[in-house]
């Protein structure tokens, strides 16, 4: 008889506000703030001979111009976020470069003026003399090491790491068949529709710093700013208001603006705001994806893998602020859903004179999936087997969970798959795909993946029932469109037996919850969702404790439903949560719903102190969830495509995604995440390419030339769900945010190869690239 919200297609509570133009994105706030503008290096590698800001300082409306020499932290290297013992040559940039710039777009000076127009005028007056240095513009140049990005880093190697599980050399030696592949994945970019923005104000009287930041991790930013400015953490407030998409690169510690804007606000005594423009977003915000893999696989005559040896290089960009997370994820996830009896992976993280890299939706997994799925297809081709059949023969079976890969995971623990059913995923995917459409130049593509989601360390939630009976729930993780306010409300509403519309959710505001981590790694539903469940459960227990005293009934006989605590089986014996909220706070002065029950002359005088020993006032609780390990989601995608033999235009005729993220909180939102992820994957597989030249210049830094898919390029997916609940968390959920994007490169490669008969060993493709590959195959290179 209790309504259950978990699993329902609840419409989003966020939408009405956003649809009316009442969103609150960072640049919408801070009216009257001073505005900043950066001077950035046009060179990918150069010595800074001098920076002359005198003319800019005299320009109309200018309040400050900062160079490294003007900053108390100008000589400080920015933090290396996730150190790793193998990262022996970690390097991070400084807030503003003063001697060497190592990528085009690196910040050199920061101008603050009365408005953005005046700041841009003044930025034009900043004179910087550069002496260009030799550029390392791609992975081959980095590996060749004839030129160095950092003179003190030999071979441009930031880190080298080898992992093995099993004796790969013996396994390859013993394999009846062996094959080598060389596979390439190029740079990609997340490109959220809202760029980054920061607005800061300093209250000198209260010594309180308030920062609005379009970040995925306000708590981390707060911690870093408190250390930098030597303030108590409680005196620094960081809020991520509405954020217009993020997809990974909005988490950093720090981008230079995240220090400069607060610093300027404190120094100038006025609020300061900086809003990125699209052109600078292209080079100043982190990229991802570029890797080059050398693979050797050994397998038997039935197509079963015996050994897999992978050696790859990862393009770090000019610095390693995010440690080795990306290549570690690639390395650990490369075997995917398959049993690989012997696996060895070695990677080298190489510096280039390009924008630094950090996770972008998928985070090392699209590359891993591309590699293993290309291996599967090549085995199938060699043996004349169906591609699906080779996968069937190699899958980890449903009775093999928990499945220990023997590999080290991104949080330092062992990568152990918790649950899944890969054979069923594939069969369901093929069933939904249906028969191949008639016609020439049609190809079928297939890709299966796993995704370690919901990494720790922890996340928290505070849940409070107000005296109105409404519920306010807060978590540190901010939303960038994932519908947190709706799905977390569903979890809380179930635990408290209230209507989902009565739960108001706040995220990403350190004023509401001190502790937390952030939104990344498909972790919010797992981490914050379960923290919400824990916190709301504590509130429910407390509500029952108070009600049991009032109703003189054992707590165990009570249930929460319909906004009340009721006696099971006797629903007319009940107390509304609003009244319990009043009772939870023994007051001399009473107000709110049911106040007459809560005064010191309450109808039921109690023995002992009004607030029981160990009890806290308020119908509220804070709860945390910390996972024993990652929850491993999985999925199978398949597509039919048509490639025009003259124009090489790609048309996706049918695209099926079957997805298993454990128990589904809200199918509507999940389907949106999958559809959106696949769309980003399609962009990254066939349209988007960051076109760097030999001088490290990004030649297509605009939406005119960096071609993101419009509606015309993205089909409506056929989506299937499978639910193997995660045994690791109370809700049984796994993450879903990144999943859609992961196998798309593998699927498109497989489908195009099938359609044209051209071996595909690289991502992204494009019509021009297919034209070239086709000519090469025909022995008629352009």
């Amino acid at each position, binding site marked *: 008889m209790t309504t259950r919200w978990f699993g329902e297609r609840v419409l989003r509570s966020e939408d009405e506000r*956003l649809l009316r133009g009442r969103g609150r994105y960072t640049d919408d706030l801070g009216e009257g703030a001073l505005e900043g503008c950066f001077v950035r290096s046009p060179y990918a590698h150069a010595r800074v001979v001098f920076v002359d800001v005198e003319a800019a300082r005299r320009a109309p409306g200018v309040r400050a111009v900062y160079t490294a020499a003007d900053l108390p932290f100008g000589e400080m290297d920015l933090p290396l976020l996730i150190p790793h013992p193998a990262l022996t040559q970690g390097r991070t940039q400084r807030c503003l470069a003063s001697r060497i710039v190592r990528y085009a777009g690196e910040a050199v000076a920061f101008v603050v003026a009365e408005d953005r*127009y005046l700041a841009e005028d003044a930025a034009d007056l900043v004179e910087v003399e550069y002496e260009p240095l030799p550029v390392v513009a791609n992975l081959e140049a980095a590996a060749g090491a004839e030129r160095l990005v950092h003179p003190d880093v030999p071979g441009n190697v930031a880190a080298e790491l080898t992992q093995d599980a099993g004796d790969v050399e013996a396994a390859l030696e013993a394999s009846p068949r062996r094959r080598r592949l060389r596979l390439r994945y190029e740079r990609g970019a997340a490109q959220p*529709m809202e760029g980054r923005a920061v607005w800061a104000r300093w209250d000198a009287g209260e010594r309180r710093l308030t920062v609005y930041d379009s970040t995925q991790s306000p708590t981390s930013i707060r911690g870093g700013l408190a250390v930098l400015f030597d303030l108590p953490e409680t005196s620094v407030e960081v809020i991520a208001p509405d954020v*217009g*998409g993020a997809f990974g690169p909005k988490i950093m510690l720090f981008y230079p603006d995240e220090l400069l804007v607060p610093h300027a606000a404190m120094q100038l005594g006025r609020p300061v705001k900086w809003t990125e423009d699209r*052109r600078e977003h292209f080079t100043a915000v982190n990229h991802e994806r570029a890797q080059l893999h050398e693979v050797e696989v050994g397998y038997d005559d039935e197509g079963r893998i015996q050994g897999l040896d992978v050696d790859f290089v990862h393009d770090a960009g000019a610095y390693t602020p995010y440690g080795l997370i990306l290549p570690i994820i690639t390395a650990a996830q490369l075997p995917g859903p398959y049993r690989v009896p012997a696996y060895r992976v070695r990677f080298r993280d190489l510096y280039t004179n390009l924008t630094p890299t950090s996770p972008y939706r998928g985070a090392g997994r699209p590359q891993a999936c591309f590699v293993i799925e290309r291996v599967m297809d090549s085995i199938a081709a060699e043996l004349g087997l169906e591609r699906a059949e080779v996968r069937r023969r190699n899958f980890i079976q449903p009775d093999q969970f928990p499945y220990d890969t023997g590999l080290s995971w991104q949080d330092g623990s062992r990568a152990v798959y918790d649950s899944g059913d890969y054979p069923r995923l594939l069969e369901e995917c093929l069933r939904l795909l249906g028969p191949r459409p008639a016609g020439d130049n049609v190809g079928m593509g297939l890709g299966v993946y796993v995704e370690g989601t919901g990494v720790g360390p922890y996340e928290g939630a505070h849940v409070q029932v107000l005296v109105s009976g409404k519920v306010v729930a807060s978590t540190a993780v901010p939303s*960038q469109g994932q519908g947190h306010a709706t799905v977390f409300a569903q979890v809380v509403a179930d635990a408290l037996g209230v209507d989902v519309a009565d739960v108001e959710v706040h995220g990403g505001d350190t004023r509401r919850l001190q502790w937390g981590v952030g939104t990344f790694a498909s972790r919010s539903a797992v981490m914050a969702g379960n923290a919400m469940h824990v916190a709301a459960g504590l509130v429910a227990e407390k509500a029952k404790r108070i009600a049991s005293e009032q109703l003189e009934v054992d707590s165990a006989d009570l249930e929460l439903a319909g906004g009340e605590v009721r006696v099971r089986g006797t629903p007319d014996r009940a107390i509304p949560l609003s009244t319990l909220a009043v009772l939870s706070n023994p007051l001399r002065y009473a107000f709110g719903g049911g106040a007459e029950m809560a005064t010191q002359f309450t109808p039921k005088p109690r023995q002992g102190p009004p607030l029981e020993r160990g009890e806290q006032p308020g119908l509220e609780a804070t709860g945390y969830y910390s996972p024993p390990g990652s929850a491993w989601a999985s999925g199978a995608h398949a597509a039919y495509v048509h490639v025009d033999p003259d124009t090489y235009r790609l048309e996706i005729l049918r695209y099926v995604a079957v997805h298993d993220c454990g128990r589904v909180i809200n199918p509507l*939102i999940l389907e949106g995440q999958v559809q959106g992820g696949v769309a980003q994957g399609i962009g990254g597989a066939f349209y988007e390419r960051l076109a760097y030249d030999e001088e490290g210049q990004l030649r297509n830094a605009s939406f005119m030339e960096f071609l993101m898919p419009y509606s015309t390029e993205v089909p409506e997916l056929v989506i299937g769900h499978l639910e193997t609940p995660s045994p690791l968390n109370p809700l049984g959920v796994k993450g879903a945010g990144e999943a859609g994007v992961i196998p798309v490169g593998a699927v498109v490669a497989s489908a195009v190869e099938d359609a044209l008969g051209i071996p595909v060993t690289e991502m992204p493709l494009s019509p021009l690239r297919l034209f070239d590959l086709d000519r090469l195959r025909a022995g008629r290179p352009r």
Partner: protein
Amino acid sequence: MIVNGVERPRPGSARRLLSDYLRHDLGLTGTHVGCEHGVCGCCTVLMDGRPVRSCLMLGVQAEGHQVTTIEGLAPSNEALHPVQQAFKECHGLQCGFCTPGFVLAIAGLLAENPSPSEQEIEEGIAGNLCRCTGYASIRRAVFRAVELSGGSRPE
């Protein structure tokens, strides 16, 4: 110029973009700026009922015209415009940043052509970028908006 039915003074500076004028002078921050070079469509507003990109216009160019922004689209605080309502019903938005541009572009399309064909719908939204939804729910929202505003839904 008339913005959402209210007469407004001309921008203080001739070089002020219409998008900046709306956002920062009038406080109508529902108009979003995604690329500042006229490709993404986030800044779309209606000028005399037709969609235009406010980042590609100077504020002074809107002098003598009627401008409708997302804040001026809904008939009341209670009711939404059919396109807004359709987006809500169809999960047509995630982060919401591109949404005002889409909603206004579609509202402009339906005002001109209440029963567009599938092809006309596809063309009508092909000038706006969305990085979250993958467009399927937006296309569904257009079909729904056609229904809600009394047009006939394409087969």
